């Protein structure tokens, strides 16, 4: 197996790209995808460490993270649809009031 440091490095690179996506993109859907990419990078590091220490708990935890991510996406996309209905635009720059 490849040394775990390479997996952690790859995970760090993917996480950085995800963070950059959250900061520079204007489309909330792509920001959302970047958040998923960051979650995925964290999962990759976790599975790599699970393999190194040969404990199964890491994989169980990754499974729960995936479930929570699925729930998060369902609610988040519903929120984006609801915002689109009220404002007829999903540009992140225009979401600057809490009046609804």
């Amino acid at each position, binding site marked *: 197996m490849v040394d775990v440091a390479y997996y952690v490095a790859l995970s760090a690179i993917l996480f*950085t790209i995800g963070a950059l996506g959250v900061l520079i993109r204007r489309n909330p859907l792509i920001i959302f995808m970047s958040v*998923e990419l960051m979650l995925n990078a964290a999962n990759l590091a976790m599975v790599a460490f699970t393999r190194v220490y040969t404990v199964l708990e890491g*994989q169980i935890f990754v*499974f729960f993270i995936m479930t929570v991510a699925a729930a998060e996406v369902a*609610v988040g996309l519903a929120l984006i649809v609801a915002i689109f209905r009220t404002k007829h635009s999903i540009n992140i720059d225009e979401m600057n009031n809490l009046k609804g």
Partner: protein
Amino acid sequence: MTIDFILFLILALVAIAAALGMLLSRNAVYSALFLVLNFGTVAVFYILLNAPFIAMAQVSVYAGAIMVLFLFVIMLLGTETLPPSKSLPWQRPLAFILALILAGEATYLLLVRKAASGPIPQPVDTFGSPQAVGQALFNSYLLPFEITSVLLLVAMVGAIVLTQKDKGK
């Protein structure tokens, strides 16, 4: 340079290229498809790391369910490309600086902790198999597993309530 390392290198390049493609595409549909490619390569990494169950869950939950939901919403709203808007001029440079700081921090930590890595023990054959994961899930982690189902139910109800049209008005 073992075969393992070459395989890892190719897959890592594909994963990073797909992530950058997601970041830089103008069209949100292309971004979503690049992200599917990224999730696919990460699933292959999971198989290399003795986690076949997680790999299958990754393909079916992430690449399957979540990305289909994304594509559906992108096409429903018709927001493949957004019109350019006046954004804050200092935001992009600041974002790159912050990302560089994050990357530098990660590199520093990796180089400092290098000494911790050593020979990796070979796990037993059944490590990470669906059987082993299922045993752990339904014996030691039964309560979290059941709570997960409640969480999914709440998310489903929440999504339906949020997207419902107001009947009172």
